[in-house]
């Protein structure tokens, strides 16, 4: 799991079946000081996030487990919102 | 998967059981235009590829275990196909390569 900041949104109408209605966000992975740790990537959104939100994400096959349709080719997913980082 | 070129063979008599009866190749990653791209590494050959062949290499552990039909195979990189040809048709790419 890693921290991220939502920096953008991707629109794609033609998606793999089962991904209809799933929002895709551009996430900048960050550390506890909110400094970028790697290049931004695209994550499915299971937490109703918005631009500028600090979120936490899961990667790998487990990412798709956060979605309603679980057998989908998703390797990054926003699973929660961060209210406060205490570090 | 990535595109790579077979540049050599490794002969090893003492090897882990999972590697038994498999040839180990030295592969050099290439871009789709045949230019070397990154460092060479070793991969298990499942398709009788030979030196000089352009090949498809899988670099993922669980795929490797599926291919070797061995849940505990200590392997990650596998040559899974010999490439006949790579067709680059994207106009943007053509433009870029023609400039080189």
């Amino acid at each position: 799991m890693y921290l991220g900041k939502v920096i953008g949104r991707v629109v794609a109408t033609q998606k793999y079946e089962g991904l209809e209605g799933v929002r895709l966000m551009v996430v900048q992975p960050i550390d506890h000081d909110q400094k970028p740790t790697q290049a931004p990537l695209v994550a499915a959104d299971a937490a109703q996030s918005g631009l500028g939100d600090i979120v936490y994400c899961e990667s790998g096959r487990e990412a798709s487990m956060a979605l309603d349709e679980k057998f989908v080719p998703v390797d990054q997913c926003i699973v929660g919102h961060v209210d406060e980082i205490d570090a | 998967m990535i595109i790579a070129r077979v540049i050599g063979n490794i002969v090893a008599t003492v090897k882990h059981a999972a590697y038994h009866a498999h040839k180990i190749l030295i592969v050099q990653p290439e871009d789709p235009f045949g230019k070397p791209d990154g460092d060479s590494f070793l991969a298990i050959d499942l398709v009788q590829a030979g030196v000089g062949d352009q090949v498809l290499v899988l670099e993922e552990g669980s795929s490797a275990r599926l291919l070797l039909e061995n849940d505990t195979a200590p392997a990650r990189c596998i040559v899974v196909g010999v490439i006949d040809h790579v067709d680059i048709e994207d106009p943007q790419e053509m433009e870029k390569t023609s400039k080189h």
Partner: protein
Amino acid sequence: MQFGRVIGSVVSTQKDPKIMNFKLLVVRTLNPANEDTGSYVVAVDAVGAGVGEVVLYATGSSARQTVQTDAKPIDAVIMAIIDSWDIQGEVVFRKE
């Protein structure tokens, strides 16, 4: 997932039987600013993508979570064709 542009295809007849019958596309990876990163990946197409299209691809075991690639040794799959994306409210890419 990562951004990429489909630039061509790979034809291979001498393949492992477990990866037969896949459409293999060459994808040039893009960064979120829609610039070439200089790297490439060969991915299985699960959405009917064509050459020139900007797509999203998933890697790792997630790539096996499609009907076509289920339990197959596949490490990258194209799972969406992008219409547009924006960063900080600015449109970076829009399909023509």
